[in-house]
């Protein structure tokens, strides 16, 4: 009920408050520059004056794997950071400011209110990632070789899924507390927790981060998969969004 109306408002808000622009600009920048950095870093290192003799000889020749590696490294860091920053105020700010009370006394179920927010953020990240992928593909093609389109898109789909885990987690944090800063702090705690769990080797293969390496191997034609991590990612998204809806429905505004 009224999902499209609230979803439309969410998109308009992201546009007017330049959130879309920020996510697109950051991800697109790293999409474009990752293959460039991979390609020219060895040359830049070699060009440093007074470089010790023999060092330039051991700098490996860049390959398409370096371009993809650089792309994943940059986007995984900045994408997750953006997921936290863009989502932390989504509910908390509306509660803090009082707009949630004004809107939720209209025919808008609280679940719809949250789902529209999640969908709006998901679309922003999907479009931004698509543009970043286009940039990365283009420069990789110019500087190295053409990447297989289907596999590269699938890699970006997996990256999007990881970002959405963090969007959903931050949305839950934003629902739990009343201030943007509090939501950000809580979500950052969640990020640290997931990173800490990822350091445990046996556990790591079930965690969202595993999808990044699966994505790389997809683009490079390797055979590695991480199905358990994929299901866990989907489960976490459903769990976080579902929990946020349940909490929000019981909350007094």
């Amino acid at each position: 009920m009224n999902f499209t109306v609230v979803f439309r408002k969410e998109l308009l808000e992201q546009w007017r408050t330049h959130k879309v622009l920020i996510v697109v600009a950051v991800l697109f920048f790293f999409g474009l520059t990752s293959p460039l950095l991979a390609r020219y870093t060895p040359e830049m290192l070699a060009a440093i004056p007074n470089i010790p003799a023999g060092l330039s000889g051991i700098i490996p020749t860049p390959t398409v794997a370096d371009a993809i590696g650089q792309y994943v490294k940059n986007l995984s860091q900045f994408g997750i950071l953006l997921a936290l920053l863009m989502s932390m105020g989504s509910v908390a700010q509306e509660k803090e400011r009082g707009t949630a009370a004004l809107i939720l006394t209209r025919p808008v179920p609280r679940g719809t209110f949250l789902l529209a927010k999640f969908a709006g953020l998901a679309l922003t990240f999907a479009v931004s990632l698509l543009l970043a992928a286009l940039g990365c593909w283009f420069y990789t093609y110019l500087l190295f070789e053409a990447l297989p389109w289907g596999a590269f898109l699938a890699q970006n789909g997996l990256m999007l899924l990881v970002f959405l885990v963090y969007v959903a987690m931050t949305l839950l944090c934003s629902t739990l507390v009343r201030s943007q800063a509090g939501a950000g702090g809580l979500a950052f705690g969640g990020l640290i927790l997931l990173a800490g769990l990822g350091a445990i080797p046996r556990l790591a293969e079930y965690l969202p981060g595993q999808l990044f390496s699966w994505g790389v191997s997809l683009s490079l034609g390797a055979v590695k998969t991480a199905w358990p991590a994929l299901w866990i990612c989907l489960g976490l998204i459903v769990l976080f969004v579902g929990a946020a809806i349940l909490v929000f429905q019981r909350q007094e505004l």
Partner: protein
Amino acid sequence: MMNSIIVKDLVKTYGSVRALDGLNLQVEGGHIFGFMGPNGAGKTTTMRILTGLAKPTRGGAQVAGIDLARDGRDLTRHIGYLPEEPAFYPWMTPVEFLDYLGRLYGLQSKIRSQRGRELLELVKLDDSGRRRIGGFSRGMRQRLGIAAAMVNQPEVLLLDEPASALDPSGRKEVLDLIESLRGRCTVLMSTHILADVERVCDVVGIVAHGKMIVQSERQALLDKYALPMFEIEAGPEEILKRWSDSLHGQSWFTSAELTGNKARLAVSDVRLAKQELLPGALRFGLEIERYEELKPSLEDIFLRLVAGEEVK
């Protein structure tokens, strides 16, 4: 006419704080109900429960025939709500905001734009319809909040301090607007500005410590609780004193307060007092400069009733 709002034994606690302590109230359809009380009396809590933003600890309520505990979801289509400090999306314009609300109510595009125009004209924001709300003053936001509360032409309008942020002319316009709704929709208006209640409300409820102290039609409340008073300015002062002392035996007389050549008389029977006051004063040889029957004020009643509740 049927009751549009029924609140029964409403209790709301926040930890050890009892914000509402068995509140009861009824508002008949089409009436403008003035919900008065000192700060912290439970007015906003009641409003939040009636709009579904908060849940009661005990007790129940019906708004526009909808039982909040049973069919609370249907409520939003029948009510309009103005919070004490209405908040908006600063990046939107009033036209966009009213259009957004219209969409939420499922109104057709033509109706949305027409109603938006009418409402902005009504609250005197038609010139600012395409300005960003972020730059609005508190008074402008308050007026936009009133327009927003009326987008769906609600059966019940819940207004939390609707005129508190407005300047005198803005206040007059808003009160005129509320008054024009009499008979068209039911208005529950919380306020601490007694003059506003006196001006537009036909029924008054006074709440203190989460309880309704009194609920009555405004005039009946004034008749019942206001002490009838008369004021006389006359001389010479010594005769005025002798005359006021002589009133103590009269059945209609209650008390007198003398200040110079002015006597303020409290009476128990206005009709008898009117018949006997002036002739008696003239018989005493008083030269009367001014004689006035004082209009009882809601403020006096409010202060007396709330003070009485404090004593309890």
